[in-house]
């Protein structure tokens, strides 16, 4: 029988490092990591942190593609590192970098303040169309009404779509795919009446019309949210919002 050590497989993980207190710019560092076929890229990074270099920084939490913390550029593509397996890169080398289009805080950790600010700006909660008292009971909704927004409510804020969007990289003022998917999720909810407040974000200079329909955001989304669809549906809605002001009695005044 073969010795366990002989059959042990190794893979080279190339990590983009950046330590703001000592590096003027990021650099690549290669680690040789033993792995098994069931190991994710995230587990590879955890091995590096535990046994090779404790200073390596990265975000992670659930390890099962639901918390949205461990998004990284893996071999140049935005992916969740918990959902990407080392075996798919072996015997080659795998390169891991911080999510594209975001400033690097440290190593694989990005600055996501911009996303959080935008998230707050769209009021990501139901603004009741007709507020009900406790005595009146719950807000009812049919399965058909739920189907309209369900896909967009699957967003886990992992930011892969932003790392896939060159328009966001070129102009970080752009509201971006993920936020538009969430905005759409509330605007088309039958219980919600806050669409008028949120349309200001859609219509703005930095709104939907920054999108040039590259479509890569929807390709990389790990939850099949199809943010490109939310953005592009809102181009139509924004145009409608604009032209309706000329025909409605209120003249677009809110």
């Amino acid at each position, binding site marked *: 029988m073969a010795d366990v050590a002989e059959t042990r497989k190794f893979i080279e993980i190339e990590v983009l490092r950046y330590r703001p207190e000592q590096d003027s710019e990021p650099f690549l560092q290669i680690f040789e990591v033993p792995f098994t076929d069931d190991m994710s890229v995230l587990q590879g990074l955890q091995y590096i942190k535990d046994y090779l270099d404790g200073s390596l920084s990265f975000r992670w939490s659930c390890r099962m593609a639901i918390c949205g913390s461990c998004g990284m550029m893996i071999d140049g*593509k935005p992916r969740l590192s918990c959902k990407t397996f080392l075996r798919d890169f072996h015997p080659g080398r795998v390169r891991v970098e911080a999510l594209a289009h975001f400033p*690097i*805080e440290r190593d694989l950790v990005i600055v996501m303040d911009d996303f959080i600010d935008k998230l707050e700006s769209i009021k990501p909660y139901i603004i009741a169309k007709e507020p009900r008292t406790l005595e009146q009971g719950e807000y009812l909704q049919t399965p058909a009404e739920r189907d309209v927004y369900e896909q967009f409510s699957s967003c886990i804020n992992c930011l892969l779509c932003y790392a896939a969007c060159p328009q966001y*990289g*070129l102009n970080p003022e752009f509201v971006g795919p993920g936020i538009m998917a969430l905005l759409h999720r509330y605007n088309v909810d039958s219980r919600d009446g806050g669409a008028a407040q949120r349309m200001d974000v859609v219509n703005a200079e930095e709104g939907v019309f920054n999108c040039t*329909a590259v479509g890569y955001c929807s390709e990389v989304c790990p939850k099949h949210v199809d943010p490109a*669809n939310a953005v*592009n549906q809102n*181009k139509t809605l924004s145009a409608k919002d604009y032209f309706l002001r000329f025909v409605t009695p209120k003249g677009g005044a809110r």
Partner: protein
Amino acid sequence: MNTPNPRRPYVRPMAGWWRRNPFFVEYMVHEGTALFVAAYAIVLLVGLLRLAQGEAAWNGWLDALKSPLSVAFHLILLAAIAYHCWTWFRIMPKTMPPIVVRGKRLPPGAITGCGLAVAAVASLVLLGLVWGMTR
């Protein structure tokens, strides 16, 4: 107190972004084929201009179209416009509200297929009409 802020976020450059991913290269190619659509529109506009200038000018334009160079150029235009058409309808499902048929959402492939079929039929009908008129 008064410790310097150790944060120094590093912003990576965007130069050459479209060469970083095959998906972006393909995007630039399909956006680029729009120029061929514009080029063909210019060819047709020149034809209109020559028509307005009289019979001799119009016949000159027709002769120019028959030159081997022009035929080769038109073959390139046809290929580029066909590719543009295919990529246009491929992205179409991402740009529209869901279409529900008998309680089921129409799959993206069906939308792309319908668009391509309509484009093909329209092209054939136009070809047939022009063919009929010139015979």
